[in-house]
């Protein structure tokens, strides 16, 4: 029946930028545009992928759009077959996921390989066939398709106003006639609007590895591959072709919201419901966690939590995580849960977390909430060296078809965008590289756009403008899918019926095509299995303490009270090298100001020294109020309820969300959108849409405009850096545990830290210096006494650290094994002579590495000679040496090899192990009179505030944290400790050379003191690096 109204349109072939380097618009943009144009439906059909469709779906929901979103995918099968599969219903969707999974799993990451069988096996998907243009080939494929997909097949006719298009149309019509196929119009869109054409052409050039100018006719010849207005579509296509699009759209009734996730069944013993089983486990935990009985309050909380879990149907989620931690427990892997749902009495009883609810009641109110409409959040951190065991356990338990990692969408960032666009525009590559390195993005005074002059572009010129525009457009475009750090999706049936799975770059890893936001959008649940170095260090500390001191410690035992004033005393002095989370320079400078004295202070400390609160201007008000210098007041009781624990200053991400709800009247769903927009803000800059609603909402509830604007600014400042309280709580617990160990068991703690390296903030050299400043005795590496790892040795009644062979650079794993298995004599010695080492199976390279590390110091006092001796090839052949005994004996290396000076030894120490136990370079330089007058780190405390001082030392750190715009922290190390130098941007700019390249620096500056923490604000910087060479020359003059 022909209606009088102009016929509508549904776009059935459309690719987003998840068809990498082809589509030039985000899925959200396409959805929005289709909605604006009044399309009846939009099918998102990325090539062998549904990675972008959830984003379009989220946008669809947000817009409450009447344009239907159809899930589909485009597939190519060489030679010459090009089809689009659309999902009419759930069964078809499962089919599509299976086909994509099969095609993807056959190929390395990022590629796919479709086979005829995949298409033959289709039972449900609708098929739109895009003919190639070659009669014979198209006829063959058309007949083949018709045989296998007869009732679900259309010929998709595209019009892009290209060369000879009239012939292509005639060809298609003839094909359709011959085969008896209906024709459906399609736009084959790659962009949401015509303005994206240059970016699309740039993407094509990037894909072809050439420039836009050279790509020539391989580019799109015009902007017709966009979502076109219905008027335009009507002039291009016959009405019956348009009507077919609507007919197809009508058949597609599948909605992503239908996807239901089912938990694996095997976690629950037969005959029990998940919830009753969970209750049982919790009861068992109650007995263990509260031996004296839980008390009324705890009991009431447990009941409340369980009721909520039952209501929301999350019992399985807790059981899944419980199963993981039971595995970790039985294998002696230390772990700790965090996240809003983790901070619950239920999780405490299930031993998912060690945070005792009695410490931090306030957190437990935030458990799950119906209103907030967000999925339960529990991350579990495991020892970083053993997380793989947990991952393998998951794969083994559930099988690969049912467990896969979530994807992380790797997007174009500024530098990658600049590099790729620049190349596509034909800008010289070394110039680009130069610009990329040159652009100091922290130097906010000059935007990168102004620095294009440096690559030979005239600022303001057309090319410069194009570059800037295209780079800004490309930022945030997805580049490829990578694996999430540890987010697993586990299901009861095969995952590939829920979402396609593809290969990750890492062997034996597979990822699903959705990232964590997509998973959240669809209400699927994931389990985060993360790795944390500090847990490794803590577990190793416990092992060492048990072995050497006979004390059995556990994480929950050690953090049962968390009230030791001695431990807080150490933290308040910023004596926190090696501690979890509070060891960075920025954290250290805050500790004496915030003076944490109880657990919750640590929770705040960890969250407050973050770019979010700092950029949001929350730090100073909080400190002032804490010190009683500023009155704390609240505009309303509701706001007091949210902010009281942080003295009226929003510090945690949760507080911002709560504020939006209680003060601006956001619904739970809106608040969740705000949370996600905050997380993605850096990528999309999409917070502005909340501004009106927030401010108006607050004003309507009687808050001042000023208050509302301030909250909005704070939300902006939080951006993606806001830190949730629920995570900070778990981190604070680990911070306390590490501080406690450092205070009471320093030898074991430092040894465990060093054995868990690489982790944390400090190098082994810095950790060892810190240990020695705390009176810990450290023994050098020795072929006779050292093992692979650092270990504790008992000297009489006290413990000391023996450095391990793992520090020796260039020493192979096998070499260490060989040394460790050498027999020892009665006094525990492996070797009595240097020459014995040559016959124990070590490679020459290993021998030389050991000699240079001075690991033979008990056998020879000259490492040069040891190395020389071990390099001798004749010595490797004992028979040969016997036959010519005179040859070996004739060598007298002492005659021609120098004795290393103290400076030589220092250089060798650093070169071969990265640290020295001998005198510090600063001492040697000072002794040689090369540094002039300066104040040592230890003595800075004796100088008054604002006094001019000179400090000098080895530059061990240059940090420009995002938390402090324009400031660089330089750490200068001398023999007594570290001096903290603050360099302001202007100082750094004026003295670039010393600032950027000095290895030994002398700084003339002004001392600033805040409590016991001392900074030097840099004035003049003096590069003293050349003194090292002079010292080297001088030391040689004396030997």
């Amino acid at each position: 029946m022909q209606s009088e109204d102009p016929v509508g349109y549904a776009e059935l072939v459309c690719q987003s930028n998840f068809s990498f380097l082809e589509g030039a618009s985000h899925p959200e943009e396409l959805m929005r545009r289709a909605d604006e144009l009044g399309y009846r439906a939009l099918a998102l059909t990325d090539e062998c992928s549904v990675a972008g469709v959830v984003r379009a779906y989220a946008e669809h929901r947000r817009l409450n759009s009447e344009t239907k979103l159809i899930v589909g995918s485009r597939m190519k099968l060489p030679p010459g077959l090009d089809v689009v599969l659309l999902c009419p219903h759930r069964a078809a969707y499962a089919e599509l996921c299976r086909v994509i999974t099969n095609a993807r799993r056959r190929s390395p990451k990022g590629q796919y390989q479709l086979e005829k069988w995949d298409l033959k096996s289709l039972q449900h998907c609708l098929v739109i066939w895009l003919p190639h243009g070659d009669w014979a080939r198209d006829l063959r494929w058309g007949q083949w398709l018709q045989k296998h997909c007869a009732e679900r097949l259309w010929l998709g006719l595209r019009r892009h106003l290209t060369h000879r298009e009239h012939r292509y149309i005639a060809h298609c019509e003839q094909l359709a006639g011959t085969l008896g196929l209906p024709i459906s119009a399609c736009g084959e869109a790659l962009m949401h609007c015509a303005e994206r054409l240059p970016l699309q052409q740039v993407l094509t050039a990037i894909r072809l590895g050439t420039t836009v100018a050279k790509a020539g006719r391989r580019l799109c010849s015009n902007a017709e591959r966009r979502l076109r207005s219905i008027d335009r579509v009507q002039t291009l296509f016959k009405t019956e072709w348009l009507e077919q699009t609507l007919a197809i759209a009508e058949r597609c009734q599948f909605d992503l919201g239908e996807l239901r996730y089912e938990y694996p069944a095997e976690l629950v013993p037969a005959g029990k419901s998940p919830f009753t089983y969970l209750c049982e486990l919790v009861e068992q935990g109650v007995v263990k966690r509260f031996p004296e009985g839980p008390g009324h309050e705890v009991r009431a909380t447990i009941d409340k939590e369980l009721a909520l879990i039952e209501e929301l149907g999350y019992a399985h989620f807790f059981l899944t995580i419980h199963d993981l931690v039971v595995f970790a427990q039985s294998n002696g892997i230390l772990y700790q849960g965090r996240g809003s749902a983790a901070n619950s009495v239920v999780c405490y009883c299930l031993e998912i977390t060690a945070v005792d609810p009695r410490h931090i009641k306030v957190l437990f109110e935030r458990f799950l909430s119906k209103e907030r409409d967000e999925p339960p959040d529990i991350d579990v951190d495991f020892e970083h060296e053993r997380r793989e065991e947990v991952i393998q356990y998951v794969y083994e338990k559930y099988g690969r078809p049912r467990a896969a990692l979530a994807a992380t969408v790797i997007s174009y960032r500024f530098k990658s965008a600049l590099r790729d666009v620049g190349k596509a525009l034909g800008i010289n590559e070394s110039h680009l590289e130069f610009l990329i390195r040159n652009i100091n993005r922290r130097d906010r005074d000059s935007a990168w756009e102004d620095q294009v002059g440096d690559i030979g572009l005239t600022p303001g010129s057309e090319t410069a403008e194009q570059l800037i525009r295209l780079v800004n457009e490309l930022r945030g475009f997805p580049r490829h899918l990578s694996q999430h750090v540890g987010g697993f999706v586990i299901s009861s049936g095969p995952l590939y019926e829920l979402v396609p799975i593809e290969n990750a770059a890492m062997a034996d890893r597979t990822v699903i095509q959705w990232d964590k936001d997509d998973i959240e959008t669809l209400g699927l649940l994931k389990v985060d299995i993360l790795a944390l170095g500090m847990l490794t260090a803590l577990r190793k500390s416990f092992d060492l303490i048990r072995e050497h001191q006979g004390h059995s410690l556990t994480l929950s035992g050690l953090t049962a009270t968390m009230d030791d004033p001695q431990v807080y005393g150490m933290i308040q002095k910023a004596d926190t090298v090696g501690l979890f989370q509070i060891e960075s320079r920025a954290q250290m400078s805050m500790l004496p100001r915030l003076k944490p004295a109880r657990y919750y202070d640590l929770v705040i400390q960890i969250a407050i020294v973050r770019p979010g609160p700092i950029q949001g201007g929350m730090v100073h008000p909080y400190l002032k109020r804490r010190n009683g210098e500023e009155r704390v007041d609240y505009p309303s009781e509701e706001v007091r309820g949210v902010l009281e624990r942080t003295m009226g200053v929003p510090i945690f991400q949760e507080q911002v969300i709560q504020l939006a709800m209680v003060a601006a009247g956001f619904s739970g769903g809106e608040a969740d959108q705000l949370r996600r927009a905050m997380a993605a803000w850096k990528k999309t800059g999409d917070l502005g849409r909340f501004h009106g609603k927030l401010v108006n909402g607050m004003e309507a509830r009687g808050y001042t405009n000023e208050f509302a604007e301030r909250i909005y600014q704070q939300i902006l400042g939080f951006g993606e850096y806001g830190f949730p309280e629920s995570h900070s709580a778990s981190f604070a617990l680990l911070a306390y545990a590490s501080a406690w160990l450092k205070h009471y068991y320093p030898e074991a703690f430092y040894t465990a830290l060093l054995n868990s390296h690489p982790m944390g903030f400090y190098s082994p050299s810095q950790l060892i210096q810190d240990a020695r400043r705390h009176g810990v005795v450290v023994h050098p590496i020795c072929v006779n006494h050292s093992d692979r790892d650092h270990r504790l040795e008992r000297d009489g009644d006290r413990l000391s650290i023996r450095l391990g062979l793992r520090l020796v650079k260039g020493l192979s794993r096998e070499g260490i094994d060989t040394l460790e298995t050498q027999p020892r004599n009665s006094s525990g010695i492996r070797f009595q002579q240097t020459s014995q080492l040559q016959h124990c199976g070590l490679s020459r390279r290993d021998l030389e590495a050991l000699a240079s590390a001075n690991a033979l110091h008990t056998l020879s006092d000259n490492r040069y000679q040891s190395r020389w001796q071990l390099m001798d090839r004749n010595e490797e052949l004992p028979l040969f040496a016997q036959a010519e005994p005179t040859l070996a004996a004739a060598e007298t290396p002492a005659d021609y090899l120098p004795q290393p000076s103290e400076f030589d030894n220092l250089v060798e120490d650093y070169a071969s192990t990265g640290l020295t136990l001998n005198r510090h370079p600063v001492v040697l330089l000072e002794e040689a009179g090369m540094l002039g007058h300066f104040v040592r780190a230890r003595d800075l405390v004796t100088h008054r505030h604002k006094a001019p001082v000179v400090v000098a030392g080895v530059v061990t750190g240059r940090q420009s944290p995002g938390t402090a715009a324009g400031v660089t922290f330089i750490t200068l190390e001398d023999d007594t400790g570290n001096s903290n130098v603050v360099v302001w941007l202007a100082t750094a700019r004026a003295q670039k050379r010393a600032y950027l390249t000095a290895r030994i620096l002398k700084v003339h500056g002004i001392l600033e003191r805040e409590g016991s923490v001392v900074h030097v604000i840099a004035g003049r910087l003096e590069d003293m690096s050349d003194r090292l060479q002079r010292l080297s020359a001088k030391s040689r003059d004396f030997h």
Partner: protein
Amino acid sequence: MLWLYLYFPRLQLETQEPDSPLPFGIVDERDNRLVQLNDAAKHQGVTLGMGLATAAALCPGIQLLPLKEAIAQRRIKELAQGLYDLSGDISPDIPEGIWLGATRMVKYHNGFDNYCKNIQRFLCQQSLTCQLGAGPSPLAARLLAKADTPLTDQPETLAQSYRQCPLALTDLPQSTCEHLQRLGIQTLADLLALPFKALSRRFDADLAQYVGRLTGQLPHPLPFFQPPETFRRHRELPQELETSQRLIPWIERLLGELETFLQNREQVVKRVELTLYPREGEPIVQWIGAARGESRAARWLPLVELTLERQPLSAPVAALALSARELLPRPKDTQDCLDPHSTASLSCEQLVDLLQARLGEERVRRLVVREDFRPDKASTEQDPLYQTERNTDTPAPPSLRPAFLLVTPQPYSQPLEIVHGPERIAAGWWDHQPQVRDYYIARNSEGLWYWVFREPQQTGWFVQGYFS
């Protein structure tokens, strides 16, 4: 033996940017480090070996050029050619220096100092920074040049100087230097103090060879520079000749000599230079080219004749010269002899040679299809023998295009019947000549086929071409 080494620390930079006041640097793109710098860059704190990131931070205005050995190679060859007048035994050390065997030359130049002065004078004219070093062996000379020690020919001083050099200045691989440093060996003196036998038990033969060559105990053969051969013949005419016609026999004879010269060497030339000397005034120079390279007088002669025909003599000629540089090996391809038709017809190259000799070189061009949607950019003129590279994945050139294209589209206002179209072309933003046009194939009332276009939001039609 005494050797001299000329070390050019910024050869490429001074070749490409001889006297720029801007800071300039040459980057080795393999590791993005700076390997040559001019003074302006050094003043801003940039140092050799510095990474791009640091250099960028120190001197945002630095101009960068990628390291290209070919540039240094060409320049060194030119320098060797130039030095040939001053010194024999020249051995180019690409890409940074030249060795000169000095022993014989010192006498020839009346002493070492004089010899060095003459060389420095030559280098001065080249505007090149150069460090000179002398040494008893080629390696010692190079080492001292790099160390920039005062120039002398005193054997004792030289031996002492090079022993003081740190290992880092030598040509030993970095790994060997590091190995030695880990033994406390920092300078050549330290190294040479080691017993040779003990050393060879611990290091590979390369180190032994280096030490041997450095100290002169082992020979160090160097390839010496040979100036390229050229052909040049000059003839004074017995009497002045006024027409080119009369010159031809003389030229033919010279071409014959050229043919013999080339055939003896199995070589060809692509270009000959004919110089005609009038009694007074400037000589007239004519270049005659043969695209494929040619040796035979019979082939050259018509080309010369055609060239002379185009430019009648303006004054009587008293002498003439024929020269040919850039001798090339004779190409293996001898198609001409094997192809039965070759005697009857000209090869493409020969035809081009003839046409160019007749019409002038710049007037014979080839039309080449280009990868561009824009009709006015879809083809371009090229050198007549330009070979197009065909990319396998390049789309075939559009087939529905008129044979006659207008250089500038003409407005058209007569009624037209549109037959096909539009074909929309939106391209060219990247070279700042953007076009958005809708092209149509149309027919006028007389049945002529036109290729016309109009621009969106613009009125008026334009003709781009005519179909035949």
